Each structure stands twice: as C-alpha cells, then as structure tokens.
C-alpha cells in the first residue's frame, strides 16, 4: 500500500473495492492491528491505532469478519458470541472459582445478550449447535453476530456475500443496511461484486495496486473512467462511453 488516505465518516456504509491484489484485505489487516504499517497513521476518533495489538484495537471499537469465515469451529454458536463479549466482561479468576454473585449476574446478562444477538441474526434456534455444523449462510451471520458482540463503533466486513447466490446476497445486503439503521454502527465493506456495493454504500473507495484510484458516491464511481478501466481492463473504457 502506498500513500493511501481514507476517511470514514460516522454512520456511513463505506465500501472499499478493487481488483484482486489491490490491497483491500491488507488495508483491513492494518486497521485491525494484524499488520503494522511501515509509515503513516491510523486514527480512530483521534486515537492512534498504529502499534496496538489486535485485542486492544477491538476494545477501542473496531471489529471485523473474515473473507473465508473464521469461526471457532468446535464451539457452539452461542459460545462463539460469548467469546466476542470477552473484552466487556469483568469476572476475575478467583471470582469465577468462588462463583460470586457478581460473576453469576454477569454470566446471566452475557447469556441474555448473546441470545438477543443470535435472535438478531436469526440463529436463536441453533444456539447450541457447533458452529462448524451450521450451513454456510448461518456461519456468515454468526460471524457478524460475534463481531457485534464486541460492541464495535466500526464494523469491517470482508466480502460478506462471497459464495452466495443472488437471493442470499440480497438478504445479506438488507441485513447490513439494518445493522447501520437499527444499531447505528459505521460499516466498512470490502466487496467484489459491483452490484452489492452500488446498492448499499454511501461512499466508495476504489483501490488499485495499493493506491487510491477514486473515491465518491456510487454514481460518481460508476462514471469514473479510471475505475472502469481498472475493473474491466483497457479498451472497455471506450466501449462504456
């Protein structure tokens, strides 16, 4: 990545698109602390995130999902969500062993919230299934529920509609929109499918070879010749005009 400058406004759905190898996932990994940028700054509400460990960054309010779903396969659906809540629970080691009233109450509340989140993603009947046995679409939604359990301000979704047919894709788009509308979470989306991105984003950033190629509303992006060229190859730009 090189000279990338992106600003994500609160409560927007902001998409990052680009051809394969454009650096979209690398960009995600920098934000969430898995890679450390060689130079430059990443700011969340004016706090620098550079050099922080991933677990610190989650606590500050950035959660993510993965392109190739990465749930905890041998934990049940509800356990997956409860793990997401880890950072907000305060039970201590001794407290757990003595099962103090505080721990009891906290566990009950956590379970209630986990169930609420599962209900939000329509998985309340499958709470006790191992996550590896859930169907593909359910796994996607469970991963989002787990990310929501960390109570994020910014939710980074890495190709949430990968491998879905058009009906499922539409359902996922509606779901993403409801996340923003109902929960007020800022969403950053990496996507491959143009149709998805155009439908739900307010702002789109186009990356190519780690550089920002263009940025704007879906309409602006659609008409931008540089984008068309990068996406559809040289020569196609002329046809599109």
């Amino acid at each position: 990545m090189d000279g990338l400058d992106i600003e994500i406004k609160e409560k927007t759905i902001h998409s990052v698109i680009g051809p394969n190898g454009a650096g979209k996932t690398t960009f995600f990994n920098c934000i969430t602390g898995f890679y450390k940028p060689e130079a430059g700054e990443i700011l969340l509400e004016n706090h620098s995130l550079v050099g922080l460990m991933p677990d610190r960054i989650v606590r500050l309010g950035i959660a993510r999902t993965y392109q190739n779903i990465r749930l905890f396969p041998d934990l049940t659906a509800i356990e997956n969500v409860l793990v997401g809540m880890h950072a907000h629970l305060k039970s201590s080691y001794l407290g757990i062993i003595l099962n103090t009233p505080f721990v009891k109450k906290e566990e009950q509340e956590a379970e209630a919230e986990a169930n609420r989140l599962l209900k939000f993603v329509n998985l309340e009947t499958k709470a006790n299934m191992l996550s590896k046995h859930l169907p593909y679409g359910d796994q996607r939604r469970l991963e989002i529920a787990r990310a929501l359990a960390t109570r994020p301000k910014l939710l980074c979704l890495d190709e949430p509609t990968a491998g879905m047919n058009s009906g499922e894709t539409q359902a996922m788009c509606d779901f993403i929109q409801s996340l923003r509308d109902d929960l007020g979470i800022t969403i950053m989306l990496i996507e491959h499918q143009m149709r998805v991105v155009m439908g739900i984003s307010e702002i789109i950033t186009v990356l190519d070879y780690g550089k920002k190629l263009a940025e704007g509303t879906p309409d602006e992006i659609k008409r931008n010749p540089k984008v068309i060229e990068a996406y559809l190859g040289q020569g196609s730009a002329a046809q599109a005009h």
Partner: protein
Amino acid sequence: MEQIRAIWRYGIKVGIIGGIVLILTALIGMIEVFTQRQIIADVVSMGHALYLAAGLFICYLAAERTTPAKPLWIISNSMFAGLTTAFFLVLLIILGRHVNLRLMFINASDLLLNNLLTFGVQGNDGLRLLLIAGMGVGLFTGLFYLLPKFLRTVILWSLAGSAFAGVLQELIRPILANNFPDVISEWLLTSDGLTLKGALSIFIFIALIVISWSIKGGGIRQGWQGLPKKQQSTWRTIGTIILLAVILIAPWRLGLFMSEVMTIVGLYVLLGLGLNIVVGYAGLLDLGYVAFFAIGAYVTALITSPEIMNLNWSFWSAIPFAIFFGILAGVLLGVPVLKMRGDYLAIATMGFGEIIRLLVLSDALRPFLGGSQGIGQIAKPQVLGFVFKGPQEIYYLIVAGCMLVIFVSWRLKDSRIGRAWKAMREDEDVAQAMGINLVSNKLLAFGTGAGFAALSGVIFGSKIGSIYPHSFNIMVSINIVCLIIFGGIGSIPGVIVGAAALIGLPELLREFAEYRFLVYGIALVVMMLIRPEGLWPEEAHKRELHEDKTNEATG
C-alpha cells in the same frame, strides 16, 4: 472362475495381514507370557484368549469386507482368512523346526512353537489341528457375522465381559472376599482364573443385562426425561451421595493392593486435570509437564525432610509453598514460549521438562537437591495425631485433592476465562481479534495447570517418602498426554476414565509390564480410528447430538 477368485481375494488378503500380525505377536513373546494367567482355570489362558481373539477379529474383518454380502461368500471368505492365517503360523512352526529362530527371536521357544500355538498337540498332528482350527474359527466367525445385529451385540458384550472378569480377577477377588459370602467367590473364582461355571454365569448375567437394557433402556431414558426438573435434581443428588459413599468406603472394602492402585490413579487424575487445562482447554501441547510435578515433590521434600535443609516443617505448610513455586515455574516457562505454536511448543516444553530432571540429577546441585540419591524422610501428613501413612489413608488426601481440582476445572470450564482458552485453542488470531489478551490468558493456563501438578507432586512425595530424579522422566508427561487423549480431550470425566484405563489397568496387570507401551500404542491407534473423540468426550458434542435428535423428532 472370475467369481471364485473374487471370493478368495478378501479372505486371503486379510489372512495374510492377520498371519503376519499373529507371527509378530508370537515372536515378541506376548502369547507365551500371557499364558501364565488363566482366564478360565485350566481351560483358557490369557495367551490363548489373545490368540483366539486375534483370529476372530481377522475373520470378522474378512467377513465384513466381503462384497457382495451373500451368506455363502461371507462364510467362505471368513474361512479363507482363518485358513490363511493358520497357514502362516504353520510355516513359522516348520521354519522353527529347521532353523534356530532363537538366535534372532529370543522368545521363539520350543514350548511356544510346538505346544502353545498348536493347542498342546505336538508333531504334525498339531499342524493339522492348527489348520483345522483356523477354518473352524473362520466358520464360527462367518456364522456369527450372519446373526442378527442384536444377537451379535449381546454375544460380544457377554464374551468381552467374561474375558474382562477373568483378566481383572485381582480386582474382583478382594471385592468378593470382603463384601460377599464365600459361596459366591467359590462359585466364580479359583486361585488362578475363573471357574468354568463362573465364567458361564457371568456370560449369562451380562447377556441378560444387555437384553433387558435394549428392551427397557429406551423407556427408562424417556421416563427420565419426562420427570420434572426438580425430581431429576433430587435423584441426581441421591446418586451423588451414593457415589461419594462408595468412594469413601472403597479403600477399606477393596484392601491394600487396590487402595495402592487407586492412589496411583488418583495422582494421575490430578496431573491429568491440570494438563487438561493446558492442552484440552487452551490447546497448548505441553510435553514437559512432569517438571511441575517434580517441583511440587522437591519443594515438599526440601521443606519437610531433615535431610539437606533440615527445616522439618509439617506437610501442610509445604502445600502453599509447593503450589506457589509450581505456578511460578509455569508462568516462567510460559513467557519464553508465548509465541510458539504446535510442534515448536511441544519440543520447547519437552526440553524444559528434561532440564528440570537433569538439574535435580546434577552433581553440581547435589548439596541442595540430593542428586541421584534423591531426598528421603519426607514428612507424612498428620491431623491431630492421626498420621496418613498407608495407601488407605493417603487415598483420602488424594480424593480431597481431586475434588478440589475437579471443582476448579469445572468452574473455569464454562466461564469467561474458559471460553477465552477454548477460543485460543480453536484459532489464536481470531481470538485475539475478539479482544482476548493472548499473553495473560496463556500464562493463566500454564499457571493453573502447573499448580495442579505441583499439588499432585506434594502428595506423591509424601506418599512414597523419598524421591529420586528418575521418578520424573519424560514418560510421565507422555502418559498424561495419552490418558487425556484416550479419555476425551477437554473433558473432566474423560480424564478420570482415561487415568483408570491407562494407569489403573496396567497396575492390575503388573506381570505384563513389558508389553505396556506396545498395548498403549495399539490402544491409541485403535481409539483414533474408531472413536477419535475419546471414551468420554466433552459435553458440547453430546449436547449437540442430543439437539439433532430432538430436531429430527419435531421437524
């Protein structure tokens, strides 16, 4: 012609493998050593049981593999497998007559080749008998395979039960002698092995249980689920109380030898539960776990023994120190290996275990740790003048320790910390991305596991009275890992079952200690093939299976 060749194929293939396996079993001396113990007095010895069981298993495999599964094909295949296996043994015996096999295979004695393998008949008649027996076993197995599944289950359970009773007579004898009238014991047991009528009655008894369970079992389970929650919990409490009572009176009812075995199993349960937290919950493969056991034992020795430091403190005052140093060592080991995963972690921890052993063994540290002479005169626990000296008293200490450790494991398991451990086990990167601090949670796991091991070390040291470096070799670590895998990784009852099976059984079969690790290896491989989740797996899996069934029922 094509068809006939196809019939032979399965049987001969399996038979060749079976023949090689049986030849090896015979040549390493297993059959001969096992004949020393009778299962049914003067009828079947353990060696012959092993020999026959292997034959049955081979023929069963052949029968199972036969396609298409027509009755005639199955029987003929099974017989071919038996015949081929017997043929290999005949070759071995003939070879043994002309060549001195003992130059290479020390166990290939004349007794083995010309008596045991041929059921006591000598000369060429023996060879003929062996071939006929092979076919006979094949015929029997083929017919057995054709029985309805229900009958097969009943027969298998009953056979296995009788064989088990014969193998574990050392366990049964004191139970019968101490608790039941002599008539029963005389009916069932001779001084060496079961009586024939005893074996038959056990066979019938188990068959009746299996049959009635399969008729009534489903009803009982449904009835149990139909009970109101409150009644269920009352019954559970009653069950727990009975179990506790049995555990508490056990050493006095079972006698000295069994108490000794139970204390050894108990120490391994303590160790297993500790390692279960590190390996089972947090997924950190630690092969140097014995080091913490050693630290617990050595701290106790240094504090309570008049040798070396001459502090002479009591056993009880040693416990907090030992556990403290154990946890400290766990955390100190944890720091350098934080970034390691999988194989690298296993090797690094293994090195740590060896370092501790070599340190206590070294001459340089001899004035402080006793070197190869070890440390003796470790204090026995005392309460108000009552001394825990024999295994029957130490047993209670171990039970108390196990209960404490089970309680702590159980509380941690489904807590915030337990979930963090399991998340790390499943996927470290994602766990971190969910806000889990890897450093502190890993150190917590290492520390907890080490603390449990140190507690076990304290009791161990006090129990045997003097400790030596060679008690803390790497085999202890390997044993613990094996018993965890065998019982079901991450499962608390699994650890107990695993310890009983892998530590308790070999103690009962002391005279066959030579083959302990061979049997271990086979048991683990078989386990991984037929039941990879372990004997008593973690609840989540069971819970889910249950869920599936109810979903099917409603959906």
